[in-house]
């Protein structure tokens, strides 16, 4: 059971790191650097801040749902 919780926390750390990188990283801290790059009609940093980060958030939640459903089964703590 300790193992289950540890795996859960590890998933959280990985996913939250991505969460931080796409929004605070690409959209805010590195925005000027990324704005040098043109992506379709957007400056890349601006695109991350107003579009890309939101798409990434949606994907992150669904990845989390998948990972946890598998983990629950593996440790036999899923709901019957």
């Amino acid at each position: 059971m300790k193992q289950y919780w540890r795996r859960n926390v590890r998933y959280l750390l990985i996913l939250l790191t991505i969460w931080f990188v796409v929004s605070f990283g690409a959209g805010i801290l590195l925005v000027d650097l990324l704005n040098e790059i043109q992506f379709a009609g957007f400056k890349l940093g601006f695109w991350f801040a107003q579009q890309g980060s939101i798409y990434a958030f949606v994907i992150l939640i669904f990845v989390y749902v998948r990972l946890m459903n598998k983990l629950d089964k593996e440790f036999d703590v899923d709901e019957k």
Partner: protein
Amino acid sequence: MDVQGWTFLIVGLTFALYIGIAIWARAASTNDFYIAGGGVSPLANGMATAADWMSAASFISMAGLISFMGYDGSVYLMGWTGGYVLLALLLAPYLRKFGKFTVPDFIGDRYYSNVARTVAVICAIIVSFTYVAGQMRGVGVVFSRFLEVPVNVGVYIGMGIVFFYAVLGGMKGVTYTQVAQFCVLIFAFMVPAIFISFQLTGNYIPQLGFGSQVADGTYLLDKLDNLHRELGFAEYTGGTKSMIDVFAITFALMVGTAGLPHVIVRFFTVPKVKDARLSAGWALIFIAILYTTAPAIAAFARTNLIETVSNQAYEEVPQWFSNWESTGLIAFDDKNGDGKIQYVAGEKNELTIDRDIMVLANPEIANLPNWVIALVAAGGLAAALSTAAGLLLVISASISHDLIKKQLKPNLSDKEELIWARVGALGAVLVAGYFGINPPGFVAAVVALAFGLAAASFFPAIILGIFDKRMNKEGAIAGMVVGILLMLFYMIKFKFDGFGGGTQADWWLGISPEGFGTIAMLVNFAVSFSISRFYPAPPTDVQEMVEQIRYPRGAGGATHH
């Protein structure tokens, strides 16, 4: 048919739909009233959460704000969506497993203390009331512009509708009405966006049109940057806020979102832990549809606006300009007397525009048919009413469940508690209506700060309650009290001139009151953590409870005890 005829027709039809749903989904028990019987499907709950979450501010004001803020508007886009990642990963599944009715329920039980419960109830009521007053006002404004009734009559009509389905149906009625309201509001938001995107860029999808070329072959955003440079404004894609402030505001909005009681409580309504996780994902998809379209609308509207009015003769402005001028939301002052509109940065500017009208005026600016304009009015009402109803339920449950049942009269039967819940909802509707008619001047300012308050109080207490087994009541209470007081102090000092006041130059670390929730939250964490180590660990049964909520199996329906 003219705009007003269409508006009566569409608004009337949607209201009839909401009332029909309310009659169909009446609440028979407190279980129905607080958490819709715990049997809502993740998809339906996702839609209801999205409608609950997207208020008049998201629907009416946000695109307009971004339109005038450019890159700086990203704080709302990221802040109000990124919080759902925190909610899905760190809160929703565990709180669902805990399986009670309200957020103060969790705080009270986890910290084995009625003091903690009461602190949580007070925070929940402060946050919810500031929020709901703004919603009722939004209802009144939409009514007065599109149906030409006085603002106050609009507020009464709104109160009547919310009263009907919130008091009768409780969470059950509200959930299914919110599903319908989501459909109305998203349709109303997307139709004009698609029309305008096509007109301007030839691309039907606003998210792609946003990055496409306009008629003269330049990219829309490059063109907008150029227009801004010519007129002396900061570049649209550049912004003017400092990086640390953008960072702090975004963080405070995210964490605040995850700490808002009316959002959290929605995840108590699904049958399983698994559903709570999935439901957060659905909610964010539905929210993302609007939130990825809004910045596109903002850029389209900004371009259209500049092209239509800049350096045009005042005599030749289109009809919509005069329409909105009569409401006082657009004003032209011909300072140099040349009869042309100079819309530029600095003192020579002759045009003032209220940011709130961008979404409402957009269909008129783009010459869209009358039924689209009416649809936008119905969408704005759906957004305001759905959020108001969700907040009223939090207030009613705080009173009937957290105060009366849990503290004053523990022997209350389920039937009696249900009566109290309805009385609480009625009281809340009346108070909200009062604030809608007599809005205190600070409502708009406080709505943004409600996030800071939620971030500074609830978020750390809930997170530590789940992830730190050693956290005890002393630490949590001290953290919540210090966090919310610090936040209140900062906002009173810099927003309302209390405690000696101060200007932007005096902000701590250059962080605005809107972003200060981030600092107050960090202080809350630090205080909770250090204080808790000086006092004994929580009792074994509480530690076992924490252990229990970490594993999904055995999540039954929500219960009283």
